[in-house]
């Protein structure tokens, strides 16, 4: 078999990087008065190209490049496609909602694309140092994007909170990586997987696992590492929230799958109970807190914490069923969540003067399209059949029951009953009659432009496909799961396998 040129292994990342640099350079060379909006289309075009490149990577043999640091496999392609799709939706969403006179539009688009580079790289990296670099690329872009609305007090606050807590969490991850290196003498994930069983009860390995879990669970905003989420979501522009509540989380979940299932599969009995507890904690804390929220974005922030919990329930599943269920849930959650934030972006506008649940009252009367879509995505978040949310929960809890965690499934499903209360509050508010005064206060009917329309259509179609014909996506997720379960045997490029240190 001919060796695959290394560059093909990171083709989507390359395309995204070129796009980002191009957007930045064009932005810098345009005269100040010119509209920056076309740059968004450039970015969207590049992202679409990257998405196709990821799909094309399926034709490559499974393997690694650049001295066993980057993998291409059905697993990476699954998450690449997901992330590129989400970035595309976020770009389309921003195109119609960013104010025309904003001077920093170019930077905004470039940052989103650079973030995508990091996220894609994170899902493909099989070398812990590259993992760290990818995570930083993606995080730093998101920190800046979170503070994009500098004119409001909440914008910079969100960015600083996110940055401080995020760097702290990355510190944990880095420390975990260092300990893993200390225990095994390598940072290559396959090799660690090879060596770890011999030292599985060694304190260093356990500490490495624990610290890395803290770092990753922070990124997916699982309780008790979730406190940053509501503040950051509230302060960031909604299109950015649509992105950062989905794409970086998808990447972080991919990393979590890699760490627990590929790197430390033999420590199954250690991390399963841990994730069990965190799953229950996340969904319960998320849902209970969301019940009391009046601000829609804060409510959805807590909802995303709860969804991280449902997703973690899949990790109680055995082997490939758990991995496939978690991957599927990531996709289903991403589709409906990006959809609902898209609706909220349009409904409450860029400056978000009316962010409360009560402000959405009568939305279906003001704009039947937005009102119906809001209800549709909420119904999916509740987990009603024939929407993606249902099959996400279904696979996740099937995996849990299959792994023997019946109680986790019961707690999870009762939690989804609890969650229905606040989703429904918003949905029913949108369906409710508004008084004449409220109709006057609500201002002009929100308009749906072409780009936003396309973004909404993507999200609706994805949510419906995942709910009605999930087989294709599940098959892709399973193909990815098999790769994680049985990592390629030969990997070492430099020197013999280092023997584990004496305990």
């Amino acid at each position, binding site marked *: 078999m001919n060796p695959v040129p290394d560059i093909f292994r990171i083709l989507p990342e390359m395309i995204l990087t070129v796009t980002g640099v191009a957007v930045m350079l064009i932005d810098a060379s345009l005269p100040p008065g010119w509209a920056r909006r076309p740059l968004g289309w450039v970015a969207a075009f590049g992202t679409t190209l990257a998405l196709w490149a990821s799909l094309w990577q399926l034709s490559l043999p499974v393997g690694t490049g650049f001295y066993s640091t980057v993998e291409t496999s059905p697993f990476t392609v699954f998450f690449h496609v997901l992330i590129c799709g989400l970035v595309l939706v976020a770009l389309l969403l921003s195109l119609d909602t960013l104010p025309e006179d904003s001077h920093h539009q170019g930077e905004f688009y470039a940052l989103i694309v650079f973030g995508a580079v990091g996220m894609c790289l994170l899902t493909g990296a099989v070398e812990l140092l590259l993992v760290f670099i990818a995570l930083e690329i993606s995080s730093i872009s998101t920190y800046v994007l979170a503070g994009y609305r500098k004119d409001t007090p909440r914008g910079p606050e969100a960015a600083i909170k996110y940055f401080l807590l995020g760097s702290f969490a990355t510190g944990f991850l880095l420390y975990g990586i260092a300990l893993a290196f200390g225990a095994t003498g390598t940072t290559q994930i396959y090799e660690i997987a090879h060596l770890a069983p011999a030292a599985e009860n060694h304190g260093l390995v356990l500490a490495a696992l624990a610290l890395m879990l803290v770092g990753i669970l922070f990124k997916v905003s699982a309780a008790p590492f979730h406190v940053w989420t509501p503040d950051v979501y509230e302060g960031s522009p909604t299109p950015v929230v649509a992105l950062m509540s989905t794409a970086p989380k998808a990447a972080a979940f991919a990393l979590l799958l890699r760490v627990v299932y590929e790197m430390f599969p033999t420590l199954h009995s250690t991390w399963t109970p841990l994730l069990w507890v965190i799953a229950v904690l996340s969904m319960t804390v998320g849902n209970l807190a969301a019940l009391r929220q009046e601000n829609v974005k804060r409510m959805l922030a807590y909802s995303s914490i709860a969804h991280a919990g449902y997703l973690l329930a899949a990790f109680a599943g055995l082997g490939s069923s758990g991995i496939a269920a978690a991957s599927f849930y990531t996709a289903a959650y991403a589709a409906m969540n990006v959809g609902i934030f898209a609706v909220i972006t349009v409904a409450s506008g860029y400056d978000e003067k009316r962010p409360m649940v009560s402000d959405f009252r009568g939305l*279906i*009367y003001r704009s*039947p399209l937005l009102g*119906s879509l809001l*209800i549709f995505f909420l*119904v999916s978040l*509740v987990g*009603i*059949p*024939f929407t993606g949310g*249902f099959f996400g929960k*279904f696979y996740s*809890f*099937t995996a849990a*029951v*299959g792994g023997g965690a*019946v109680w986790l*499934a*019961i707690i999870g*499903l*009762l939690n*989804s*009953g*609890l969650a*229905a*209360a606040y989703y*429904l*509050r918003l*949905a*029913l*508010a949108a*369906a*409710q*009659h508004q008084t004449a005064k409220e109709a006057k206060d609500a201002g002009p009917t929100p308009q749906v432009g072409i780009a936003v329309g396309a973004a909404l259509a993507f999200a609706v179609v994805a949510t419906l496909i995942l709910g009605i*014909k*999930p*087989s294709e996506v*599940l*098959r892709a997720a*399973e193909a990815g799961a098999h790769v994680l379960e049985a990592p390629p045997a030969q990997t070492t490029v430099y020197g013999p396998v280092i023997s584990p240190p004496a305990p």
Partner: protein
Amino acid sequence: MNEINQSILTLILLVPLAGAVLVALVPDRFKLPNWIALLTALVTFGLTLHLPAHFLLGHGGFQFEVDRPWIENPAINYHIGVDGLSLWLVVLTGLLAPIGVVASWNAIKERRKVFYSLFLVQQTAMFGVFISLDLMVYYGFWELSLVPMAILIAMYGRKDGPKAAMKFFLFTFVPSAPLLVALLWLYIQTGSFDFTTLQILIAHGSFPAGAMYWVALAFIFAFAVKVPVFPLHGWVADTFSEAPVALAMVVAGKLGLYSMLRFHIGLFPEQARAVAPWMIGLAVIGILYGACLALVQRDFWRLMAFAALSHLSLITLAIYGMTLTGWDGAVYQILSHGVVDGVLFLLLGVLYDQYATSQINAYGGLAAKLPRTATLFVIGALAMIGLPMLSGFVGEFLILSSTFTGVSKGWTIAAALGVILGAAYMLWLVQRLFYGPESQLATSKPPHDLRFGQMAVLWPLAVLMLVMGLAPSLWLASIQTGVRPPQPRIPNPSLQPALSITSLGEAQR
């Protein structure tokens, strides 16, 4: 013909859905949404009539069956079919759809597109519940049926729609969580969601008895809330007083009762027999409690809600009496209750639209002004009470006689007391609404008696009630094939020969 038989059930599912999409697309002008919805409902009803016309009476088991893989992992099949148990329930659902459209014709003035398209989605969901033979597909439609209902209650509620909608949704959604876990557990144990496969596996397989007990309990809990069975009826009064008439007439009863018969007793006969005494006790409490509360209501929607609780509890009693005659009576009574409730709700909706109040006190002496409304209401009320020769009698008689012979005399007497109370509150309601001195309300407004469209719906229904009372064997013949499956569920040979209402007396002798 064979091809039609193959696709008829799929068509019944898809036509309302297609209608819903069409309603969503057309402009809201010239009552276009109304006409499309009416046309869709009538076409669907016509399609459902194909089923009894081509139903083979001699055959046990399912007919018009379709079984195609839908999702391979987990193995969910698009498995649908009807037997004698579900056959007439599908037709009833089809029949109530045009009635619902007529009942909403003038009542719904705003956002008609949203209303009618959700109404039609609701139809699909209900058909799906009755014909699904794959438990996951069934669960899908079961859950789906909640959504349009909740949204429409919130949008068109009379006073506080969102609150009632929330109550309805949570009451019915939360119990489906244990149901889903139970389904997943069964799937993990057996590798199948298929109803017939599971039925065989559970009958012959050895499952841990304790776990099966909980699984069966999860099923019955979800169904009991939906019926509702006392003490899980908390949602019913608010829902009835807020829901648009077209939905109030279908919200309670048949979905839950059918599911009890098919999926609780059908899958877990052992466990069902174990909880039967409890269910009988709760049912009798429900009959009396509902009837007593109905007696003291001042609002006719709430009165109808508690009347429904009482009547549906009677059917629950028959189902958990675990006698074949009782099951015949139960299914028959579901049909009769569906038709009678449809008529009464439509008429109350007409009154409410005219006078904008549901306080019974405000009415009185309307019979002179609205003679057609009054006549039809009286017929409906008499059918509900169970006057011989009208539809309610047959079911009640079968239920009470089977309880008397098959369960216990004491419970029968208590249940019969509830039936008497039922006569009391219904007749009193008729008297307070239509007779007596003319109230201020009646004189204050020019009377609008029933329009042509309403009459065109109501008179056939009145005739139907009469036919159902006179010739029950038309329906019972096929119901019996559903209730008596090929493999006898009850080993008692004395109850095996087919009992129709005519041979019942002989059988008892």
